[in-house]
């Protein structure tokens, strides 16, 4: 729905007040990185990104393609066929095509899937950097450790429903029905335990 591929069953999805559904102009401001791995294997990374730059009718497609490939650090391998790329490299080429028209919003569907730890770290750095440069970066993931490390605003979906929203520490704090767990180390744990118990006016403590 956010990528304009599905209509919402009720309500509307908008970007800066503009409806996304059936509005192809919106793609000037959105970069989409789909989860699907399938790409045009017969062309090189350079050709693929350049073709996308031309599809956007950018004034200087070569310069735009070069800049996008530089952003994802793929200029070194841009002359190779896409079929020879690793998963991480394909992911970065997909990212370059999504970035070629310099959109303010970047949507990524499960970008960490199938990546090895080194590729994941690279991608995390890249996403953080994009955010720092003022882009809105929105990605879906079920790899919660990564989400926790790089996301500033988290939307939690449970079984297709929106369950919580915001910073995960804030969300945790709002779950008041769950007592907070702490690990404490001190120079006298036994005395501290006794002191905590002595202060405790809570029924059933102990």
């Amino acid at each position: 729905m956010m990528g304009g591929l599905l209509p919402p069953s009720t309500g509307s999805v908008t970007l800066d007040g503009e409806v996304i559904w059936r509005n192809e102009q919106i793609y000037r401001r959105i970069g989409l990185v789909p989860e699907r791995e399938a790409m045009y294997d017969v062309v090189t990374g350079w050709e693929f990104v350049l073709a996308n730059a031309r599809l956007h009718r950018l004034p200087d497609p070569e310069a735009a393609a070069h800049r996008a490939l530089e952003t994802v650090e793929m200029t070194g391998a841009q002359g190779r066929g896409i079929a020879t790329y690793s998963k991480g490299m394909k992911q970065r080429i997909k990212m370059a095509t999504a970035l070629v028209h310099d959109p303010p919003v970047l949507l990524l569907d499960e970008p960490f899937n199938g990546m090895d730890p080194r590729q994941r770290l690279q991608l995390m750095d890249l996403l953080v950097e994009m955010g720092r440069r003022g882009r809105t970066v929105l990605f879906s993931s079920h790899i919660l450790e990564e989400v926790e490390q790089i996301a500033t605003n988290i939307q939690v979906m449970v079984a297709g429903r929106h369950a919580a929203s915001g910073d995960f520490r804030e969300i945790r704090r709002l779950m008041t029905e769950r007592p907070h767990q702490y690990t404490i180390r001190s120079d006298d744990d036994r005395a501290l335990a006794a002191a905590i118990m002595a202060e405790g006016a809570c029924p059933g403590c102990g």
Partner: protein
Amino acid sequence: MSGVRLTSMERGTGTHDGSGALHVQATDFAAFVRTLPSLARRNGIRLYEVSPADESLESVFSYLVSR
């Protein structure tokens, strides 16, 4: 301390100073973090570490799922 529950106390194994650790549950997060330092000071106890044991997106998510 009101709303605080001492869940367990470890002895010796695998900790940096061999003294173990306390595991505490606090229902009132704000009251707990306010009270603990002064309580330790009044009893002449030095705190080395106070760290949340379930403050991760993983635990938040599992709590949301099990609701």
